[in-house]
């Protein structure tokens, strides 16, 4: 089976019902997307497929259509995406385990809605669980990222 992740093409030998998350993590060693629940309840596994946020624990590799971008492909420590910049400035992370998914979801939100209200943020980010409770800072960071992207 072939797939493109962060611009690189890969060939994997797996059964078609294996979720994309586990192809990424255990076959390709791309560990930015996290396993939290496996049942679409936490959002830690969120990646982009052709630019849209999807829960990679729910997408069977056999059903994948499109290019995959993970947190590692959104931006890097040397070349940060605006959302990552905002996340760093607001010092959002505590344990940080949910934050790959939060950032991927927020990037998708801002692509669709460049100036979200708190209600918009709550509606779109509601599926991304943060057990450490960083929600006040996530809201602030989404607003800050919106401002950055507007200025860009």
């Amino acid at each position, binding site marked *: 089976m072939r797939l493109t992740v962060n611009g690189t093409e890969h060939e994997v030998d797996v059964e078609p019902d294996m979720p994309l998350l586990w192809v990424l993590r255990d076959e390709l060693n791309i*560990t930015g997307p996290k396993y939290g629940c496996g049942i679409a309840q936490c959002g830690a596994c969120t990646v982009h497929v052709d630019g849209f946020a999807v829960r990679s624990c729910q997408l069977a590799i056999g059903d994948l259509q499109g290019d995959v971008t993970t947190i590692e492909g959104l931006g890097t420590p040397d070349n940060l995406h605006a959302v990552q910049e905002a996340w*760093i400035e607001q010092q959002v992370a505590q*344990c940080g385990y949910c934050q790959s998914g939060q950032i991927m979801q927020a990037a998708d939100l801002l692509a669709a809605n460049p100036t979200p209200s708190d209600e918009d943020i709550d509606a779109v980010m509601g599926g991304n669980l943060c057990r450490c409770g960083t929600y006040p800072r996530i809201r602030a960071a989404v607003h800050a990222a919106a401002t950055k992207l507007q200025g860009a």
Partner: protein
Amino acid sequence: MASLGKIARRTFLIGSAAIAGGVAFGVYAARQPFPNPNLDDLSEGSASFNPWVIVDNERVTLIAPHADKGQGVFSTQAALIAEELDIELDQVEVSFGMPDQAYFNTAITEAAAGFPMYDHSPTAERVRGFLGGVAKLAIPMMATGGSSAMPDVYTKLREAGATARETLKLAASEESGVPVADLRTERGAVILPDGTELPYTALAARAATLAPVTDVALRDPSQWRMLGQPMDRIDIVQKSTGTLPYGIDFRTDDMRFATVKVNPRQGGAMNGYDASAAEAMPGVERIIEITGGVAVVANNTWRAIQAANAIEFDWGAAPYPADQAAHWEHLAGIFDDEHLNAEARVEGDVEAAAGEEITGEYRSPYIAHAPLEPLNATILVTEDRVDIWTGHQVQQFVEQVVAEITGHEVDNVHLHNQFMGGSFGHRLEFDFIRQAAEIAHQMRGTPVQMTYSREEDFVHDFPRHITMGRGVAKVLDGQVNALDVQIAGQSVMRSQMGRMGLSLPGPDTQLHEGAWDAPMFNLPNFRVRSYLTEALAPVSSWRAVGAGPNVFIFESLLDEAIHAAGADPLEERIRLMGHDVSVGVLEAVGDMCSWNGANIGEGRGRGVAYGFSFGVAVATVVEVTNTDGGIKLDHVWVAADVGRVLDPVNLENLAQGGTVFGLGHAINCEITYADGMAEQTNYHAHEGMRIWQCPPIEFRALENNPKIRGFGEPPIPPSAPALGNAIFAATGQRIREMPFNKHIAFV
């Protein structure tokens, strides 16, 4: 936290031995530092002045041994050293180091001294000092828990930085001929009077030949460059780019992925299983019997989980009541002398006290830890050594537990502690370590990563203990005149220590923590009694431990009494409090929210609560509106006194996160047992809080506490009662049981 009982037990033995063998030796040995473990395999030309600082010709490495489960202690430990070392955080490497007795936690025994943590009297301090010294001799325990990291390291890490700095200056003086007094240090270099910079790395070889300079004075906080200022956490870029490896992300060549299933009726037997279907599934390499269950080893975690789900099990019965109702019934029946854990506080005479009586019964359910990163451990067993990659709060015990299983000498077992995707207390437990070790022991030569499925993480959690509280309050002349609180619950410490093969003599103070030590010195009649059972489900330390349920019980009862007295909830609390630091946080939170009574208009209300845990006084005000869609949390204000603020941004994050954690579980979460099994097996049934329920949370830190304190847990206890009290103010409905959503709808 699990260490407390063991320390208490050993205390007695060592205490007697010390007296028999001569106290002088005991005191001497207790004051001697442990040998510096870095010296064991230091390369030529490198210098290590103490267990926390290593300098070689390329880099400066700081050792930050306390485990980081998200509370930011990795960064703060480094900052404490760097402040005195005169180096910037972007110039150093920071490492958790390897477990060693040199890193033993001097503060974790404080809570076991039997004095409330606000008691700084000479007697209390002497006992704490003695316990610390004795604990060092008995079991130097390297552990992160009980919000003790900052009290433990606040002085010793700054001393480590200062010692290293002065030794490097001495090396520079020898090298340059300039007297030490004329040298300064800045940005990782010693600077000569003519402006020449000698980087620390260039001085390493000479410094290595010198005895460390230990006679150094610490700087006054007014001179600090970075401590006390907002700091960028050193892990923040990695955590924002998906590049920080957690335990679950550990990868190495030829590794295998495994998962386990053990009896969901915790502690019950496995009567049999049929793995024939699982054996034939793709990627499955081995099915291994482990203690109480079965492990599947595969070449991919998902395949291992699929195969484990395909095994048919015959599980034995649970060694505790099968259904939840029986747990509550059992608790209701232990308020008697036979089950008395302690009469922990007695002031005046609650029975003879005059006043109108208010009574209430309160319940706090089982709740799961459920850190977002499921428990996991990677272990490689070879003939001569064992390597473990996992995130754990009691590092040295991990090595011991694994050594017992693999048969290696403990010295040949090496834990590489990893960043944790949360813990909330679950990573104080050892079952997942034992299971991973049993698997790796049978897979010698192959590194195996064992990961719990989320479902296994839930059903095999040891949740927060259930607690039932009964209270009688008396109000007289518009004031609270008496509070009589009885708390029945499980002993978290005994349950947890029992799994470590240890016993806890005497009462478990966590059973009344947060109630017995409420510093309400102006309450004339005050009694707290606790009752203990060990007959229910196995439980463990859950963030804030006993204070979580107990502050809910205590502050709800107090609020009922204050409303019955017709007094103001904030003013009456301030009146009852005879403790300046606590009055300070109550006044601060009142100021922050412009407190003007609990009733703020039709369908709206405010609740205040106070909590004292791990030495920190916290006051929380919650404001709610009763809308058509249910209770909406409008705003929260939190004031706390940690003695000294080291990183205001991280502290605010912990205040907000802890409040979300406390509120979310109070509203939404419980673990209930049916047929001996936890009924909640994933986040759909136990989610904590989601962003749309989260109100704005404002925080103010005070610095009047005479001692520095940790803040990972203290924000939690007052959040639940503050919300319950606000709901009462808004609706007139008093909720005496968590989770609140069983009794009222939330937006």
